């Protein structure tokens, strides 16, 4: 195809429309330079930071006990002879009984899997997944207990285990299912995948009963998926009941995904802004739903699209909790939550506040709040301890037990013509708390080799 034609078509399709960017964008950008030190000052600061970091790396083989601001929670020293920091990108899932799984992604796209049966005190290796694609492809997992779980990796591969990670069934479903935008499993065998068909105009729901070996197409439009929604989430709580959250629309199925009905999530009393619901968490007939709501908007600016110029522009938002007592058919507002909320049963849950991406530099403090009455009241606990420059990448609570993965992000690589940035992985640690986040202990994982 002619390169000129390619350019012309893409310029039309990606055109942001008139009046963009704002005439004041350069001025506003310049006005923010004061938020960061001038380059010269920064350089010396970074050299110092690099020197400190280098010393720390040497010392970290033994003990990492960093002085922290007054009031910040304490982190106990790790067990002697173990390194508290590892290389990789960790994600973790805490099970209701105190078991947990941790998936550590490596630079080459492979993943190491660990699990614990004693609330994170001891971890055992539970397998390694090979790289299915170069780089660091997307990865999501669903563990159901200490023995069974599913890991999905892009391009869509399904790895499942029913023996605690001793054996993994790995299926390449990328050719069958194609562009998956969301998937969920209710067991190591049964799951659903929402995919975009090859002509990218139709969203299709697929169903498997054998860990991804075979897929059945169970739904086509009018299943609604917002074309422009940032996040499409799909969640099933049984072989029949499932949820699809796409933008401000929540839909439910009670026949395994064949038919879908829209479910109303009414705004809080006295407010009118539509909520953006997450997939509900169901505990029998009781359900809890976390939602985001816009609380302040910049005056609407029309964004030309072929489907009209309607747009809501977000400036600020808040988190809310809704409850259902009839299996998710109707929902009512409970109260505002102090962060994005998760629940381990119909009463207990936790909310995480942060990071605040609207601030520069980002506010990477993470505050945990707990509820024991289904979100009606929240108790703020102390923040997850973060050394300077570290961020929290995974955090989960069940009751007073908490596990957190914290990592040190990589500096932005300086590209140069014809030179590929040298790849490296962030350092990370796993922290454990047994008192609802008041105190945290670094826990070691088995060797990476």
């Amino acid at each position: 195809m002619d390169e000129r034609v390619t350019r012309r078509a893409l310029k039309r399709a990606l055109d942001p429309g008139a009046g963009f960017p704002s005439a004041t964008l350069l001025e506003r950008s310049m006005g923010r330079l004061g938020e960061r030190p001038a380059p010269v000052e920064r350089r010396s600061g970074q050299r110092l930071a690099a020197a400190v970091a280098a010393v720390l790396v040497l010392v970290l083989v033994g003990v990492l006990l960093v002085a922290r601001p007054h009031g910040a929670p304490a982190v106990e020293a790790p067990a002697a002879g173990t390194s508290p920091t590892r290389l990789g990108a960790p994600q973790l899932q805490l099970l209701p009984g105190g078991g947990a799984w941790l998936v550590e992604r490596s630079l080459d796209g492979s993943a190491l899997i660990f699990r614990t049966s004693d609330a994170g005190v001891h971890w055992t290796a539970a397998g390694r997944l090979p790289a299915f694609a170069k780089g660091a492809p997307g990865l999501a997992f669903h563990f159901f207990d200490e023995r069974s779980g599913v890991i999905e990796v892009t391009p869509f591969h399904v790895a499942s285990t029913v023996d605690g990670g001793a054996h993994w069934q790995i299926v390449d479903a990328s050719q069958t299912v194609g562009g998956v935008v969301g998937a969920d499993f209710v067991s190591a065998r049964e799951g659903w995948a929402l995919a975009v068909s090859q002509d990218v105009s139709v969203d299709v729901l697929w169903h498997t009963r054998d860990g991804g070996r075979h897929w059945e197409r169970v739904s086509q439009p009018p299943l609604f998926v917002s074309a422009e929604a940032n996040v499409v989430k799909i969640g099933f709580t049984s072989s029949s009941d499932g949820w699809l959250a796409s933008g401000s629309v929540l839909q439910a199925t009670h026949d395994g995904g064949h038919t879908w009905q829209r479910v109303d999530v009414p705004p809080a009393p006295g407010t009118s802004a539509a909520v953006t619901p997450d997939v509900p968490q169901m505990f029998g007939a009781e359900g809890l739903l976390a939602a985001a709501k816009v609380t302040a908007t910049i005056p609407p600016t029309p964004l030309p699209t072929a489907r009209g110029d309607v747009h809501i522009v977000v400036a600020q938002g808040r988190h809310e909790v809704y409850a259902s007592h009839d299996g998710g058919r109707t929902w009512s507002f409970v109260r505002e939550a102090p962060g994005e909320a998760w629940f381990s049963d119909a009463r207990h849950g936790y909310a995480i506040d942060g990071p605040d991406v609207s601030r520069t530099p980002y506010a990477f403090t993470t505050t945990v709040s707990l509820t024991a009455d289904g979100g009606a009241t929240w108790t703020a606990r102390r923040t997850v301890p973060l050394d300077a420059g570290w961020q929290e990448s995974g955090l989960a609570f069940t009751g007073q037990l908490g596990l957190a993965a914290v990592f040190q992000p990589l500096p932005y690589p300086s590209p140069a013509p014809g030179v590929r940035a040298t790849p490296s992985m962030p350092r990370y640690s796993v922290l454990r708390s047994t008192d609802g986040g008041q105190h945290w202990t670094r826990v070691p994982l088995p060797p990476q080799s």
Partner: protein
Amino acid sequence: MAVVSAEIGLVAGARAGDTVAFERLLGPWVTPGANLAFALLHDRHEAEDAVQEAAVKAWSKLHQLREGAAFGPWFLGIVAHECGSLRRSRWYRIPRGPLPEALAAPDERTADDDLRRAVARLNEKQRAAIVLHYYLDLPLDQVGQALGLSTAGVKSRLNRALKTLRPLLMAAEEDWADG
């Protein structure tokens, strides 16, 4: 890429803390940066936020710009990186498009819509490469500089992306020619 001496002087001045020099460096790249961010984020305000964040980062990390390297592609690389961070770190989930009721049936969508959706579903590096080369008209070596890739790596990503997009590109072009 050869860098003209005026830009070298501006980079040196900005590194010394001269904001006027930095503004002269940044100015020509604000609109391309915003267009890149819009193509990656599909949101005007987020795109402008990303450019502002990128400008602040470029200011504080200017010493990382290699001697003799051009400022523009380097800045666009920061914008692309910022867009990726923004997409990954969004704590809210807000509808980006028209309300569901306003959505047309699939058969009423235009070829440009489908092309835009297809671009949005490319992986980050492919999408950025497509936008930088075909939308912002950056030559391959500058796309490579922006994305930290070799020219061969850029070509490879473009070819893979075009393979996905080609039927939609043709449809969009036919639509345009008919319309």
